[in-house]
C-alpha cells in the first residue's frame, strides 16, 4: 500500500510516504520552504515525497493526517467555555484559527492532492507519536510513553505495543493525562518566561539549566503537583496558556519567580540575574525529570517490559531521557529521530498501514536519512562560478584532508546524501569541528551559529569507542544513536573535549554506528589517527533562525555567510579563500 502521512497546522509540518509498509521518503516542510518550524500545509514536502517515489497523488491508497481535527476543536471549544469570561480575548482568534482552516483538513488534503475525500484518514495525535516511536524501533514488544504540549485532549499517554515481522501489530494506549495538565506546556511556560520562543527555545532552557542549581524546586513542585494515582496536575493559577492569546504564564507565576527575562538582553550566567534565570531553569528541569522518571518507573513495574519507546516533544529532552534510562528500570529506551510533531507524519503513515489497513509488520530501516539528497555537482558549479577553489577527491584522500583540516582548527560544513528527518543533524547536514578547544565553542556560537554563548555543542563518537569517553549506562549507546541522551563526559577526557563538554560535565553525544553513516564514521577514524581521539564536535548545519540546510546551494550560502573554512558535499570539497572573496565583495560594493 502507498500511504502518505501528513502533520501540519501547529508547528513543524511534515510529510512522509510509506510503500508496502516501509518508509521511502520523509521531510519537514521547513527544509524545503526555508521557513523555520513552518506549520503550513506541507505541499512542498508532499510533492517531494511523491516525486521521490515517482508517484502521482492518484496512486496513493490513503493519506492520513496525524490528529483528529474535530476532537481538537472539541478541546479548544471546551477550554474556551471553561475559561468564560476570561477567555473572551482568545475566543475570536481561536475560532478563526480552527474554523478558518484547521477544521477542514479532509477537504484541504483532498483538494490539494486531488484525491477522493474517502481516501483521507485521521488518527490520534498521541497514537501518531506512539507509532513513530514504536514502529520504527528495533524491538518486538515495548512499553510506550508519549508526552508533549497537547494533541486533541491528551498531553501524556502510556501504553504498550507488540509486533513481529510478517505478523500483526498492536499498539494500545492505556491511560492519558488530559489538557490543560501538560508537561510540555509546563516547560513551555518556563521557556516563555526565560524570553525564548516557545516550541523552539526549549533546548535553551535545558542548556541553561546546567548553569544553575534547582533552588526553586519546591516552588516548581507547587505548580506541578503529583496526583495520588501517580500522574500529575498543574496549578492552573500559575498559567495563562488556556485563556490568553499571548501569554503562557500568569501574574502569580511572575510573583513566584520574578519578572520575566527581557528577551533583548543576553543571559550571562556569571551575573546574579543570569544565575537566577539559570536556577529557575534548573528547577523546572529537575521537577520535569522527577515526574517523568517516576511515571516511567511505575509503568515499568506495571508492565514488566524491558524496552520503552518514548515519543512527543518532551522526548527531545535528552537530560530527562538519560535519567529515565538510568533510573526507571528499562533496559533500552528508544527515541526516534523525529519524536516531535514532524515525526507524527511518519508515525501516522505507519499506523495506517499496520493497524487501519491491517498490513503485516515490516521492520523499518534504523536510520533517519529520509529527505532530499545533496547534489555535489551543484556545489562544484557554484564554487566554479564564484571562483572558489574546489576539488573532487577520492573518498580516502578527502577524508584524510578534512580530518587534517579540522585538526588545524578548520570549521567544516559536511553534507552527505539524504537529509535527516527530525531536528538533529546526525552526520548528513552537520558542522564539524575540533572538540578539544573551548575557544572553538565560543567561535562557533559567536561567529558561525550566531547564538547564545551558554549553549553547548554535541560530540559524535563511534559506537566502538563511545564508552571510553562518555559514561554511558547500559542502553546508552542506543539512546545516543539519534542524539537523544545527555551523558557525563569521563572526567579524564573533559580537558580534551572542552568544546563539547557542557558546564556540568555532560554532553549530548551522538553514538555513531558505521552502518548508519559510514563516511562520517571513517572521518572519525581518520581524525583519531591524526589527533588521538575519535570524537568531533557535531552541530546542525544552519545559522540561528534558519532551518538546517537541505541543498548544496543552501549549504554553500550558509558556508559563506557563516565564515566556515571548508565545505564538503559528498566528494566535492570547497575551500574558503578569504582574500579572493573579500576582493569580489569589494567589487560588488
Amino acid at each position: 500500500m502507498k500511504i502518505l502521512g501528513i502533520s501540519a497546522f501547529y508547528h513543524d509540518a511534515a510529510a512522509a510516504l510509506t510503500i508496502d509498509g516501509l518508509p521511502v521518503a520523509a521531510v519537514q516542510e521547513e527544509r524545503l520552504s526555508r521557513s523555520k518550524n513552518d506549520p503550513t500545509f506541507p505541499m512542498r514536502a508532499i510533492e517531494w515525497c511523491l516525486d521521490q517515489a515517482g508517484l502521482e497523488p492518484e496512486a496513493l491508497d490513503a493519506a492520513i493526517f496525524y490528529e483528529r481535527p474535530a476532537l481538537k476543536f472539541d478541546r479548544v471549544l471546551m477550554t474556551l467555555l471553561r475559561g468564560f469570561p476570561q477567555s473572551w480575548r482568545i475566543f475570536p482568534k481561536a475560532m478563526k484559527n480552527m474554523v478558518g482552516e484547521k477544521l477542514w483538513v479532509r477537504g484541504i488534503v483532498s483538494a490539494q492532492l486531488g484525491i477522493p475525500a474517502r481516501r483521507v484518514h485521521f488518527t490520534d495525535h498521541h497514537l501518531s507519536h506512539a507509532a513513530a516511536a514504536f514502529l520504527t524501533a528495533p524491538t518486538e514488544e515495548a512499553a510506550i510513553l508519549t508526552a508533549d504540549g497537547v494533541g486533541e485532549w491528551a498531553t501524556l499517554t502510556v501504553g504498550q505495543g507488540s509486533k513481529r515481522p510478517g505478523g500483526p501489530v498492536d499498539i494500545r494506549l492505556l491511560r492519558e493525562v488530559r489538557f490543560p495538565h501538560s508537561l510540555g506546556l509546563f516547560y513551555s511556560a518556563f521557556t516563555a518566561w526565560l524570553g525564548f520562543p516557545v516550541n523552539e527555545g526549549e533546548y535553551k532552557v535545558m542548556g541553561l539549566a546546567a548553569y544553575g542549581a534547582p533552588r526553586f524546586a519546591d516552588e516548581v513542585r507547587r505548580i506541578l503537583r503529583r496526583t495520588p494515582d501517580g500522574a500529575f496536575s498543574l496549578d492552573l493559577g500559575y498559567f495563562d496558556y488556556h485563556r490568553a492569546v499571548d501569554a503562557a504564564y500568569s501574574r502569580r507565576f511572575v510573583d513566584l519567580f520574578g519578572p520575566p527575562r527581557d528577551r533583548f538582553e543576553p543571559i550571562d550566567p556569571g551575573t546574579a540575574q543570569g544565575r537566577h534565570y539559570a536556577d529557575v531553569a534548573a528547577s523546572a528541569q529537575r521537577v520535569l525529570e522527577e515526574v517523568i522518571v517516576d511515571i516511567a518507573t511505575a509503568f515499568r513495574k506495571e508492565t514488566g517490559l524491558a524496552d520503552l519507546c518514548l515519543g512527543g516533544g518532551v522526548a527531545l529532552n535528552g537530560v530527562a531521557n538519560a535519567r529515565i534510562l538510568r533510573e526507571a528500570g528499562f533496559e533500552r529506551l528508544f527515541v526516534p529521530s523525529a519524536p516531535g510533531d514532524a515525526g507524527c507524519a511518519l508515525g501516522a503513515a505507519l499506523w495506517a498501514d499496520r493497524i487501519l489497513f491491517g498490513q503485516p509488520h515490516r521492520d523499518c530501516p534504523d536510520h533517519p536519512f529520509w529527505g532530499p539528497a545533496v547534489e555535489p555537482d551543484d556545489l562544484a558549479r557554484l564554487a566554479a562560478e564564484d571562483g572558489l577553489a574546489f576539488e573532487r577527491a577520492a573518498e580516502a584522500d578527502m577524508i584524510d584532508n578534512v580530518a587534517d583540516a579540522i585538526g588545524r582548527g578548520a570549521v567544516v560544513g559536511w553534507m552527505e546524501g539524504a537529509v535527516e528527518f527530525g531536528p538533529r543533524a546526525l552526520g548528513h547536514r552537520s558542522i564539524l569541528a575540533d572538540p578539544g578547544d573551548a575557544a572553538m565553542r565560543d567561535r562557533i556560537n559567536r561567529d558561525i551559529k550566531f547564538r547564545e554563548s551558554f549553549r553547548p555543542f554535541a560530540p559524535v563518537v563511534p559506537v566502538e569507542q563511545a564508552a571510553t569517553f562518555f559514561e554511558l549506562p547500559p542502553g546508552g549507546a542506543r539512546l545516543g544513536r539519534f542524539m537523544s541522551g545527555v551523558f557525563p563526559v569521563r572526567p579524564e577526557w573533559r580537558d580534551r573535549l572542552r568544546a563539547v563538554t557542557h558546564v556540568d560535565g555532560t554532553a549530548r553525544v551522538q553514538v555513531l554506528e558505521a552502518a548508519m553513516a559510514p563516511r562520517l564514521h571513517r572521518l572519525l577514524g581518520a581524525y583519531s589517527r591524526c589527533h588521538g581521539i575519535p570524537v568531533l564536535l557535531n552541530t546542525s548545519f544552519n545559522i540561528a533562525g534558519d532551518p538546517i540546510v537541505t541543498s548544496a546551494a543552501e549549504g554553500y550560502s550558509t558556508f559563506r555567510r557563516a565564515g566556515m573554512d571548508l565545505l564538503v558535499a559528498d566528494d566535492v570539497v570547497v575551500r574558503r579563500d578569504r582574500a579572493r572573496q573579500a576582493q569580489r565583495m569589494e567589487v560588488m560594493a
Partner: protein
Amino acid sequence: MTGWRVPIDRLVWADPRRRARKLLQFAEVEAQGARDLFRAAEMTDDPLLRRRLFAHARDEVRHAALFRARGLALRRMLADPGPEHGLGDGLIPGERGFDRLEVERESIAALLAFIHLSERAASQAFAAYGAVLDHDPETRAVIDRIARDEEGHMRYSRAELTRLAPDARRALWVARLRRFWRAYLRLALILADMISRLILTLLYFLLLPPFAWVAKRAARKEAAGWRDCPEHDRAEGRAGGGQY
C-alpha cells in the same frame, strides 16, 4: 521628502519608547529581508546576480545589527521599556509573509522589480525619518547611513533588472500594481479581522454563557490525574480513521 508625513513622523519618533520599538522592529524586518535575499541568491542561476544579492543580503544583516544595537541602547535608557508583545512585526494574524515575495515562485524580473521598489520606498522613508530626528543624532546617523545603502541597492537592482529582463519597464509597472493590490488586500484583511473579532466577541457574550455554565459544572466533577484512553477500538482501527 513628502511634506504631509512630517508631522506624523515627528510624532512617531519623538517618543523614545516608540523610537526604540521602531528600531527593533526594523531590525527584525531587515533580518527577514536578509533571509529572503540569501534565499534569492541560492535560487538564481546567474552568477553575477547571485553575488549582488549576496552582497545586498549581507548589507541587510549589517542593517539589522545597527538597528538592533541602537534600539537596545535606547531601550536601556528607558525606565519602563513597555510590553514586549508590542514588538511584533506589525502583521495581522495569519498574515505572516504576506508582504514578502515567495522567492522561489517569482521570475527574476519580478524579484528585481520588487527589490527595486522596496528599496526605493525604504530609502524615502528613512530619509523622512532622518529629517525629524535632530533631537537624537545617534539614531539619525544610523538611519542616514542605512538610507544611503538603500539608494545603492536601488541602483544595483535597477541595473540588474535592465540587464536581465527584456522589458524592465513593464516589470516595474507590474510590480507597482502588485504592491498596490497587496496594500489594498492588507487593508481589507485588517478590516475583515476587526469585523470578525467584533462579531465573534458579541457571539461569545451572547451565546456562550449557558454552555459555559454547563461546561464549568462538568469540569468541576473531573478529577485530575490518569484517565483511561477513551476508545481502545480506535487503536485497533475500527473507528476507520475518522475525524472524531
